[in-house]
């Protein structure tokens, strides 16, 4: 019997000890009318070898196309040591560290993770993770509504340059608590949120302003001006950042005069494989003043009975298992294993390694944009500084172009027509440090051919204004 160790003799001994005749007798309290007899739609068991064959086939079936897709999930190098250590049974199969004395490994690691996130973001404190970047933003929004004592409002200013899936997730999670998201338009030339658009809201009551850096288009926002505007208008500033970019970019804790109040984002670039979108982890950091409004697990350093340093879950009075309906969030599980990987990843790379990976991604994307822009009709859409993603306008329908590229084993980018129809035929591209000069050249060559075949510039497609 797979994963069940009992011998027939042991079963008989155990049944005798209990005083019942059969396994079925153990279910005597369940009304007979409810009992199930068949599971026809479930296939019969496979051995490890058989499921190995099946999974091998399926993994191969999807190919391994060359990835120029980013849009919230990035193909970075992960040192071999990261998952070899993370996969140790002592991390992989441990439970939530509620029994602190039996969990010092995980607890110290999480404390180190919190310390690293504080160093990277320039904030005072970090929690021990949430599910992913999008749900972390939703939690950050709810946290801001609770934490902003100057504001009586549940309104949040949300730029359209925030990842569209994040905006949807935030809406889906906060709407039943009557939180209202007010969308801010972006500048059509720069692809950023012009601080001047905020002027129409001056004097109105908002709980927070969300500030993405870099934004969904890869463009750098005027984070200092936006943060200062929020503070001048009684709103908290919530940064949504790519943690790898922080190796190069100004940390949220230093934005504007006072720094952002809360920052969050997707931890995937720190050691999590693409893996179809998860598991990743969301991170959430804040200034000390707001720590009691923070959701999720937090680890603190303390002492044992002998005065020896130890680590434990702390501020648990915020959490559902203690406060129930009055908790800061319903969250229970976090993404502990992904944080284990991220901590080892950050330790291995250090700030020097992260800077090199970030800088190489930035440079590769510039090289990609240059190579692709040489194709007639292809041009970058925004003229402002960007990190490692750029929006390109195509002279042919984006969906068809991307399909053709995929047939040539290239994931050419994300079609923006669904979320940003005003951009016309536009795609979002990314080249991380893993993309080689040859891959970039091959992409350019294939794109030129595909565009030519699809009629290229002659099809006369002009972006809608």
């Amino acid at each position: 019997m797979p994963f069940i160790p009992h011998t027939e003799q042991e079963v008989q001994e155990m049944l005798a000890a209990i005083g019942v005749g059969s396994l079925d007798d153990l279910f005597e309290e369940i009304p007979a009318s409810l009992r199930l007899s068949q599971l026809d739609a479930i296939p019969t068991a496979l051995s490890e070898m058989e499921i190995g064959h099946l999974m091998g086939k399926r993994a191969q079936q999807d190919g391994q196309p060359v990835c120029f897709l980013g849009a919230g999930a990035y193909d970075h190098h992960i040192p071999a040591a990261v998952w070899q250590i993370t996969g140790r049974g002592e991390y992989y199969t441990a439970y939530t560290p509620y029994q602190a004395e039996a969990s010092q490994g995980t607890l110290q690691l999480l404390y180190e993770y919190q310390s690293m996130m504080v160093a990277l973001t320039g904030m005072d404190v970090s929690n021990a993770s949430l599910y992913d970047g999008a749900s972390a933003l939703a939690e950050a929004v709810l946290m801001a509504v609770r934490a902003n004592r100057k504001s009586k409002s549940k309104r949040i200013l949300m730029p359209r340059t925030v990842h569209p899936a994040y905006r949807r997730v935030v809406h889906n999670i906060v709407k039943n608590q009557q939180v209202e998201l007010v969308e801010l338009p972006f500048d059509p030339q720069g692809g950023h949120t012009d601080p001047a658009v905020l002027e129409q809201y001056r004097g109105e009551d908002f709980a927070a302003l969300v500030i993405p850096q870099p934004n969904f288009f890869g463009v750098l926002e005027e984070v200092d001006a936006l943060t200062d505007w929020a503070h001048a208008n009684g709103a908290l500033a919530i940064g949504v950042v790519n943690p790898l970019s922080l190796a190069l970019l100004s940390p949220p804790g230093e934005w504007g005069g006072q720094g952002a109040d809360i920052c969050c984002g997707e931890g995937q670039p720190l050691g999590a494989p693409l893996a179809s979108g998860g598991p990743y982890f969301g991170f959430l950091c804040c200034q000390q003043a707001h720590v009691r409004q923070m959701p999720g697990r937090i680890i603190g350093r303390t002492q044992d009975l002998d005065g020896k340093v130890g680590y434990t879950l702390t501020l648990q009075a915020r959490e559902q298992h203690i406060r129930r309906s009055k908790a800061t969030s319903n969250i229970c599980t976090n993404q502990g294993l992904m944080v284990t990987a991220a901590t080892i990843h950050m330790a291995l790379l250090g700030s020097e390694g992260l800077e090199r990976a970030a800088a190489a991604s930035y440079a590769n994307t510039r090289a990609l944009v240059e190579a692709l822009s040489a194709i007639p009709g292809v041009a970058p859409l925004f003229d402002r500084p960007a990190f490692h993603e750029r929006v390109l306008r195509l002279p042919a329908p984006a969906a068809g172009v991307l399909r053709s590229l995929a047939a040539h084993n290239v994931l050419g980018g994300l079609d923006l027509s669904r979320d940003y129809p005003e951009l016309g035929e536009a795609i979002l591209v990314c080249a991380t440090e893993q993309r080689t000069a040859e891959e970039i050249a091959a992409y350019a060559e294939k794109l030129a051919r595909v565009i030519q075949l699809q009629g290229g510039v002659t099809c006369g497609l002009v972006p809608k204004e």
Partner: protein
Amino acid sequence: MLIFEQSKAGRYAPAQSPLDKADISAIPAQFRRRRSAALPEVSEMQAVRHYTRLSRKNFSIDTQFYPLGSCTMKYNPRACNSLASLPGLLSRHPEAPESHSQGFMACLYELQEMLREVTGMRAVSLSPAAGAQGEFAGVAMIRAYHEARGDSARCEILVPDAAHGTNPASAVMCGYQVREIPTGPDGDVDLEALKAVVGPHTAGIMLTNPSTLGVFDRNIEAIAKTVHQAGGLLYYDGANLNAILGKVRPGTMGFDVIHMNLHKTFSTPHGGGGPGAGPVGVSERLVPYLPVPMVTREGDEYRWLTERECPESIGRLTAFAGNAGVLLRAYIYARMLGREGMPRVAEFSTLNANYMLKRLQALGFQAAYPQRRATHEFIITLKKQAKELGVNTMDFAKRLLDYGFHAPTTYFPLLVPECLLIEPTETEDMATLDGFIDAMGRILEEATQEPGLVKGAPHTLPVKRLDDVKAARELDLAWQQRDAG
């Protein structure tokens, strides 16, 4: 020692990052970081040794028995990890086109179908990232259903007093008020109390069955009828699904919506606190509201169902498809169990629990519900020991650590004083159970003869009992450079 304390300025692991440092001077200075982040500066071997050593300060399923009630700490098969980590699966970008996703999507589709069958629900969405997010999705669907019918007076979710803390917290996140229902003396929900409070304001009830008291609620059909007649819906918290897998289906019990904890019943790893996965299943009337994305099959092709195809959906709750890697592990586990393996999960986890209860009772431990049949877990109460010996549940729990056993769940559910909630799972053998029982017997003797030994436990772990009050009063949540001095 912290990794930060092993740091030396100027050291790093050069093999781990690009050899050349690319020029970033085109990024205007106003956007750039002025000082490098103060991350540890260590060699590759230092990092490997540090985190390997730290791992040895953990209990884990691979090294210890974890009889944690309501957490289902069963063996996590190695094949699930290695097969879900095949290069083609790890490298798939979440936005990859369907043409390059058919293998992955086939796994998700088949998992949806298997979960549908074993829970008796009409449809399943795999996307919630954890049990609590599954709960949120479930209650949000209940709300969407009532709102679509214009039934807007329903403002209350009923939750038994034995429920997990996530239940009331999830209901509140969906904008509901929570009302607690008391438990009767035999561990079933107090049906009369329930009847007294249901009405036109009832949106639904959230139940775990078997409950966290370790008993199957025999009145479940009457509860379902009562709530349905009042116009409310029934929510099934799948935390204890292991107890009835392949034996009883929540759909048959009358539930309208259910979440499953794949990191419990379907043996995906707990990972030191996550990631989990919390798929939801629904009855016919809630199908339009299921969270996206889901996978459907058209002919021989798998297609995504997103906001576009499901306009009434409560939407997505994470940016992509939830914890996809966890879903793959659960899929692989389910295929290895197969149809014949699923009921065995319920049977042998129940066998193990009842065996342990019987033997512990023989040693003088008091069952919370001695007149009931235990399910896959059970409660003993140490009220008597706490009163007579001055040794409480936490002391027992900590002393168990010295014997090499992870403690059971302590002080939960809240309504049983000085309780231990014990769940052995089906993957533990008789000798391990006997070892735990013997340890409990010895601790009871110690508590009688040398209570100080138990009250001061643990004695053999990397640290003794920690000062939680100090941790909360003098918050130290991150290492600072100044700590080095």
